[in-house]
């Protein structure tokens, strides 16, 4: 091994994507901007002084300071939810080797919604803690179901079949949700509160409920990233590299469901964030999941928080649900991606 052959390869191209530091700095600046916007903007515009009052002077009890305090928990909550959805999307794409996988497209969100509605209707549940477990069960069952249907037939699980299975399942589950909800007005009220609230319902208690799920989910995601990189080359290559593909898929899917289910339980069904955040990062950083996964958390947080602010501004004096905003931005992008993506089976 002579040294010239090593020096020919620039180290960064092997290990860290080009411009990674720059991307990281820009992301953190954007994150800061988002947080600031989320604290200041809304149906009531708050000045800088009031923001500082709300943040640092807990003894000042002006109306604006209280608005800011309410917005703090809302902002933290939307950052965490966005991070969870971003990582969940990245994991689902890696596990299914499908560029257009996302919790909402695969119907996993709707599964969680159905279980929560059933919980409200038949079990009389109403706390965040109870929502979470139901949502997780709903997400997990739907994920298995959609993947099972999508893999039927000779060519295995192709992106198109998975998306079709997800859309069909999602439509069927949505109508079930309506069928259960419409005859029961108390369910309707409770459900509307849960769904309309979106990230606006985020308070410190739901944040503390959410954090353990977020940490476990993201930890598993980061640990499995190198093996998922191998899986991206095909199951055969991955096996040759010493990856036990079945166990890896199980773990990664578990953490994807954990993240998406918990986020859905607390914020209501929010679509497309997983898709958007991952693709932005992949476009900038390339396909290395060791970077795409953690960075999707940051881009997911940015996208969801911005969408929430946009929803507040458009819907003023009330607010537009953040899920509606993300769907508006996400749907056209999904169509573009679906047209571009090469059909590859598992």
């Amino acid at each position, binding site marked *: *091994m002579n040294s010239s*052959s*090593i020096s*020919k*390869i*620039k*180290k960064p*191209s*092997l*290990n860290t994507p080009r411009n990674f530091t720059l991307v990281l700095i820009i992301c953190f600046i954007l994150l800061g901007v988002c947080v600031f916007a989320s604290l200041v903007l809304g149906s009531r515009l708050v000045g800088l002084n009031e923001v500082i009052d709300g943040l640092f002077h807990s003894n000042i009890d002006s109306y604006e300071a209280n608005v800011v305090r309410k917005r703090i928990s809302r902002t933290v909550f939307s950052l965490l939810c966005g991070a969870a959805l971003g990582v969940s999307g990245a994991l689902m794409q890696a596990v299914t*080797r499908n*560029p257009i996988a996302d919790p909402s497209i695969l119907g996993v969100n709707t599964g969680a919604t159905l279980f929560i509605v059933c919980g409200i209707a038949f079990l009389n549940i109403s706390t965040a803690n109870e929502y979470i477990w139901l949502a997780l069960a709903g997400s997990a069952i739907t994920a298995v179901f959609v993947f099972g249907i999508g893999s039927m037939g000779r060519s295995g699980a192709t992106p198109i079949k998975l998306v079709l299975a997800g859309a069909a399942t999602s439509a069927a589950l949505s109508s079930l949700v309506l069928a259960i909800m419409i005859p029961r007005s108390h369910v309707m009220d409770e459900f509307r509160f849960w769904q309309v609230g979106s990230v606006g319902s985020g308070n410190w208690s739901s944040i503390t409920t959410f954090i353990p799920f977020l940490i476990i989910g993201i930890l598993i995601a980061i*640990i499995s990233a*190198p*093996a998922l*990189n*191998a899986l*991206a*080359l*095909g199951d*055969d*290559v991955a*096996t*040759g*590299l*010493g*990856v*036990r593909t079945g166990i890896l898929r199980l773990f990664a899917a578990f953490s994807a469901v954990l993240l998406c289910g918990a986020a859905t339980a607390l914020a209501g069904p929010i679509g497309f964030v997983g898709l958007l955040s991952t693709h932005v990062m*992949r476009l900038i950083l*390339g*396909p*290395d999941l060791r970077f795409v996964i953690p960075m999707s958390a940051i881009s997911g947080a940015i996208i969801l928080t911005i969408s929430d602010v946009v929803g507040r501004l458009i819907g003023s004096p009330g607010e537009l649900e953040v899920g509606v905003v993300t769907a508006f931005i996400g749907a056209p992008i999904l169509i573009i991606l679906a047209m571009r993506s*090469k059909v*590859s089976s598992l």
Partner: protein
Amino acid sequence: MKPTHVFQAEEIVAGYDNKTVIQGVSLAIPSNKISVIIGANACGKSTLIKTLSRLIKPISGKITLDGKLISKIPSKQLARILGLLPQSPIVPEGISVADLVGRGRFPHQSLLSGWTKKDYEAVAEAMRIMDITELANNNIDELSGGQRQRVWIAMALAQQTDILFLDEPTTFLDITYQIEILDLLTDLNRKHGTTIVMVLHDINLSARYADYIFALRKGKLIVEGEPSKVITSTLVKDIFGLDCLVIKDPVSGSPFTIPKGRYHVNDE
């Protein structure tokens, strides 16, 4: 030079779902040599190499490496000895040559170690052997078929295994690239002592490049040995069911098969 290994299969039966394809094959891979598996379409060549390289679990029989069942060796540890290039690997969109080759280092890395100097050196060396160092930062989508195949082999080389299985490494390549790939694999074997086991379609290239040939018919190993012993007109008829004339390859001196069809045969 790579160490010597004893890699054996004992009475393996393997297949898919309920269909058995390999019906009781026993063999020992000659260490530090190039072995080629030949046979007609659907004879089980691919299934055999997949079973040997642990992509398919055998229904019965034993596959051992240095006396240990390969199913009992931890998967990452096994991946440091036994490498594999399957027939149709997947290229992630937008991946660079260096990134793809670097993924071959997976079995050598642990969660905490990250990229070590050894990893960089292994990747650089693999790219140098396959002569793709200049392409390191290129996108795989921009490469020709021959260059792509060199990148994949480099990925398998970066894994630094003593044994390398390749399932039809020359398929879809034109003749120049086929020779180039086979020459590079021969370099690897002669300079580093890597044991190579591959499936090839072309019987003449098999005869030229193999030290040892395994011939399959209908899931059974019917003959094995050096090319001069295996490639005779009688045995080729047995293996492929084709009449042919076997002459001495004027370039390499290895056996050269000339097929006889129903047309274009001169009367003597």
